[in-house]
Structure formats: structure tokens, C-alpha cells
């Protein structure tokens, strides 16, 4: 078992029930694990939600955590991924004083090189958006720092797997077989 710490992504598929995010985050807190980012949204399966957590820890610990997450009622499955097993992305917004940007001769180059885009321009401020990995949104942050960034925010990681198998579908098939067996038994 690898004991060395690195960044992992935990993907949790859940029913749409109140309080689940709380119940799951308690499992991390109990072990003193710091959640680096979190995001949640609908999944490709109707009525099933998908949560993404990124954490810095070791595989052995997180495998135990996965077991405890899956134990929660209304959690369907939880998966543990390293960065190379998923395609992932984050989005960042930067609010910068417009006046400072107007003085910048290289603005076009910055936007172009970083593949960023401008969402809004007013007399007072400009909002720039960039999607990418954390290192990429951070690189733009470092560059824009010279223009006195007024506000900045980066979203949690969102991800999809590179695996050819959709494990959640297998789980759902199993669960519906279980339901069929129940129904047959009760007949």
C-alpha cells in the first residue's frame, strides 16, 4: 500500500437527499482530513447527484474513507482517483481594475496565451475568466497580480473518468436486480 501523500479525487454518487454533503464531510473531518475543494452537481444519470472532493492524503487512508462514505444511506457508490485517471477542470474568475488593464500593452497577449476570456468590462472593473488546472489558473493569477486583483475565486474541481466502464451504471443494474428479486419474493 502506498503511504505517500498525494492529491486524490473522490467522486461520490448519491441520491438527492438533504444533509448528505454534511454527512460525508463529517467523515473527512473525523480523520482530520482537509478537503481542498468540493463541488456537486447532477450526473449523467437522472436523479443521481455527483460530488467531487479533492484531498491530499494517502491511498490507504482514503480507501477506508471510501468504505465509510459508501456506508452512508443514500450514497450509491464512491470512487477514488489519482489525477491521471480523470479529466478534470476548474474555473477561476479575476476582477481587476479596468484602468490598470487599459495601461497594459500586453493585455491581448495575456488573454490569448492563457486562453482566458473577458466576461464583463465596466469603467471600474473587468472580469476575466479562465478554466484549467489549478496550476494554470494560478499562473494567470500570478500574472494579473501586478494589476491589483480586487477579487478572485476558483471553483472546486469537476471531473469525469477516463475509464471505458461506467461503474455507477453497473451498480444501478445490480440494485435493480435486487429490487426484482425482492418483488419476486413478495409475490
Amino acid at each position, binding site marked *: 500500500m502506498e503511504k505517500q501523500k498525494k492529491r486524490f479525487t473522490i467522486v461520490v454518487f448519491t441520491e438527492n437527499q438533504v*444533509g448528505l454533503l454534511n454527512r460525508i464531510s463529517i467523515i473527512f473531518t473525523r480523520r482530520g482530513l482537509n478537503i481542498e475543494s468540493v463541488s456537486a452537481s447532477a450526473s449523467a444519470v437522472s436523479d443521481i447527484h455527483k460530488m467531487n472532493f479533492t484531498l491530499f492524503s494517502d491511498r490507504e487512508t482514503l480507501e477506508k474513507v471510501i468504505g465509510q462514505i459508501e456506508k452512508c444511506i443514500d450514497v450509491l457508490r464512491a470512487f477514488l482517483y489519482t489525477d491521471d485517471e480523470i479529466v478534470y477542470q476548474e474555473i477561476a474568475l479575476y476582477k481587476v481594475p479596468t484602468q490598470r488593464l487599459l495601461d497594459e500593452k500586453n493585455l491581448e497577449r495575456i488573454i490569448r496565451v492563457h486562453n482566458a476570456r473577458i466576461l464583463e468590462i465596466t469603467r471600474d472593473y473587468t472580469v476575466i475568466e479562465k478554466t484549467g488546472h489549478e496550476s494554470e489558473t494560478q499562473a494567470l493569477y500570478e500574472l494579473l497580480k501586478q494589476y491589483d486583483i480586487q477579487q478572485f475565486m476558483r471553483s472546486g474541481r469537476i471531473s469525469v473518468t477516463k475509464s471505458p466502464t461506467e461503474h455507477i451504471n453497473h451498480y444501478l443494474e445490480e440494485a435493480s436486480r435486487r429490487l426484482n428479486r425482492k418483488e419476486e419474493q*413478495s409475490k
Partner: protein
Amino acid sequence: MSKKITGSEAMCRALLAEGVDTIFGYPGGAIMSFYDSLYGYSDRLRHILCRHEQGCIHAAQGYARASGKVGVVSVTSGPAATNVVTGLSDANIDSTPLVVITGQVGVDSLGTDAFQETDVIGITLPVTKWAYQIQDPEEIPWAVARAFYIASTGRPGPVVLDFTKDAQLGLLDWDYERIDYIRSYDPDPEPNPADLSTAAALINRAERPLILAGHGVMISGAEEALISLAEKADIPVAATLLGLSTIPSDHPLNKGMLGMHGNIAPNFKTNEADVIVAVGMRFDDRVTGRKDAYAPNAKIIHIDIDRSEFGKNLKAHTSIHSDARRALEALLPMVNKASHKEWLDSFAHAEQVEATEVMERELHPTDTEGNALRMGQVVRKISEATGNEAILVTDVGQNQMMAARYFKFTRSKSMLTSGGLGTMGFCLPAAIGAKIGAPSREVVAFMGDGGFQMTLQELGTIMDLGLAVKIVILNNNFLGNVRQWQELFFGGRFSATPLRNPDFVMIARAYGIEAENVADASQLDGAVERMTSSKGAYLLNVNIETTDKVFPMVAPGSAVDEIMLDPKRRYSPAE
């Protein structure tokens, strides 16, 4: 169209639909509507009024574990809800099925610091199997059905239903359907055939196999299957604290209790075993001692219904994910008839040493200070006086370990104790619940003078109901287990452990409970005779030698084969 009923009424009907006939509770502001409805159901739903909400929940735990049914609790919001948190945590770690209904303020007042409002769901999420706030009366049938299904199936556990005033007072059309399926939850997984084959092959090749029987054996009703398997393959059985009474004490394959204060033989032999079959247990640190020195020669087969237990504390060679009963019944025909006479005989040395060097001084003391008694002799005497057929309920500490060590069992589900959480004050209310859950059985409650005083208000419940609970205070005027550690590991600095106690006999009598002091050994037989022949509750306040200590002991940080016989000597197989 059917006539609408209130949510409170629906809750009563839902409880009846789930087969509930007993509720342990305490009323208050935010649950009054429910109590008003309950009044109309008092012929079918018996309400046991305990004297503190912690008492209610421990009583419900005792009831659940003695009867095998779900324990039901109803309390009000705020402080009442926080008072049940210890019991929830206890039930969660000891896999006890409970449904706890907490009153809650109106929906509009949630989150406003209204009177007796507290975030019950937020507080109880980490210590429950499921917790749900009912805001709308229409949700009641679904929530109650789900609560009972979740609490009682799979690895059982506590569920909280936070019952808002809106849901109690609002109206709904009554329609109830029990639940037996939740998509995200499979409480009865089938053992994987490949895992069973691997396990059977390991057992069939084993020369020194050992079965560890945990609480899961009793929860799943696997006692018979376990004994059959052990007998067929001639495998010695050791029990965890919560696994006690799985197999009768005098069964030739029963090799006693595991753990810090367990018997020498099963602990020591754990490290000689070549195959360990761990059934419905979770390798708690009190059982394993130092983990890196635990069972170094064994291939471990871990059977559990809770998949998250696999590898949580210990890596097993093979795990079987299912109910203990299903797994053992499936294994039985796959396991060869065998004889392990030499291996079984090798337990005798440790058993002999324990009998002469440890147990003799507890059971037949000749040299106690001030003629006081030792805990072991009291426990054994009372066990025998009940024909070893009573339900043993213990508190936590020395009394617990001594009771576990010296009480004898002939029937399953006869040991109720707070194992995982170690909750002092558990015993007295749990004994009340046990007596209500198993009224035909004798219930004997052993506790220390410390633990008794944590929940002694429940003597009022015993008085009220006229319950024939037999209460034994093993009184050494000390917080004995902490005292033992202070003596052994903290240089005899008895920090905050001496207790100046009241007259417990007078306290019992104030509650109309017969009671007597047992000052020395000459008074024991008569007192026990009077207690066991009494038709009602009875309390014995037994004078225990202050320095009486629980041995043998696998000291903290030691391996299970490093066993203290007393403060100075270690067990050695070459002795």
C-alpha cells in the same frame, strides 16, 4: 376520500404498523402533541417514563439487545435531544437498533435559536445510521418505515427522526407501507462463492485454527451455525466482549474471552494460530493489542456484514461480505470434519496458569484487606445462584471486566454491556430495558459505585414499574479501573479517583427497593439468597477490596501474547 389525521396520530399508527409496543421516553414542550396522541394509544403503546433522557435511550438499548426488537425512544427537543446523544453514539458503535424520535420546534423557528431549539440532525449525523428531519406530515409514513428498515437490518444501528411541530400538528391522509428496499443500501449481501471457497480451503488446511466470535454472530442469529462449524472442524472459539454468551461457557470448545482483560489462552494462542476465522467482529484495539504484533502466523478470514470493516483495523487474507449466519451456513458443508486435538490440548497450560495464578485469588480470597470481598467471587456466586441463566448487564470499568470474566452463560443474548463507547452509567437503565424486553428472564446488573451514581435516578423508574431488576454495586469507594491504571502506570498517584459515597442502601430504600450491605464474605451467601428469592427489585451494596485489580492484562501498547498475571509477573508458556 379518507379522513385526514394529524401527524402525531400518524406517528402512533406508524409505530404500531412496525410492531412497536413499548416506547421509552420523556415528554416536553416540542413533543407534546405526540404525547397527547399517545395518550389515546396507551393500551397498545406502552410508554416507559424514565427519569432522564439518557436513561430512556440506554433502557431502549437494553430492551433492543435483550429482545432483538428495535428500541424506540421519544423525547422533546433541545436539551432532551442532546441528552440522548451519548446513547446514540453507544448504539452506533455497538450496532444496536434504535429509532429515536426527537421533538423539534416549528419549521419557521428552525435556525433562529428558538426556545429549546437545537440542530439535532447536525449533532446526531456523525453518530447515527440515519437521521432525518420531518417537516411535512405527509413524510411521516415514508420516514418511519425507512427508519425501522434501516435501524433493524444489515448492521443494525440508531436512527433519529426529528419531528417538527408542523409535522406533528399538520394533517395527512393515512396510508402506510413498510419498506424493504432502498436502492443505495443492501443490508443482506450474498456471500461471494469464491470467497467462501478460499475460506473453506484455508480452514481445511489449518492445523491451528481459531474462531473469534463477535457481536455479529448473535445479531444474525448465527449461534447454532457457529457451534456446528466449530464442532465439525474441531476449532476452538474465543469471544469478544460483545460476543460473550454466543457459545455456552461450559462448551468444551469455548476458550473464553479475548481482549485486554480476556483469558490468557485465547489471547496468547491468537499469535500461534495459523488460521483465524473472525466472525462479526471488528478487531477493536482492546482485542488486538499492538496491531503490528497481532496474529503474525495467521491467515485471517474476516466475515462481516459491514464492508467498511474490512481492512479498517486489520488486513484480512480473505473477507466474506455477508451476514454471519449466511456465511457460516454456507461454509458448514464446505468444511471438512477434522480433529485438532494437539492444538486444543495446548490451551490447557494457559488455562491452568490462569486458574491457579489469577482466578483462585479472585474466587477464593483469603487475604483481603479488612475482610472486604473481591469482585470475581461476588460475580461467580451470583451467576451460580441464577443457574448461570440470567441476563448479565454491566456498567463500565472493573465491574464490567470482572463480570465478563466470572459470569457464566448458558443462553445467548445474555450479556449487555457498553463495549465500544464504554459509557459509564449505561448499566442501570439498560437493565431496566432488558427486564422489559425479556420479562421472563432474571436480569442482574453489576456496576461500580462510580457508574451507579451517573444514572441512579433510574431507581425511580424501577420503583414506578415494580421491575424485578437485581442490582449489585461492587463498591470499592474508588473509580476502580482508573485507580488500577494509576497504580500500574502512573506511579500510584490517585488523581481524582477516591469517591466519598452516600449510603446506597438508604438510597435504594428511599425508592422502596429492598437493599442490604454485604460487608464481608460471611454475609455474601445469605444476601445473594435473599436477593435471588425476592420477587421484586433488590440492591446489594458489596464492600470490595480497594486494591482489587483485574488480571490478566494485556497492557496498553503490548502484544496479545504479552500478558500480565499480576503487577510483577508475565505469563510464560514454558513455566
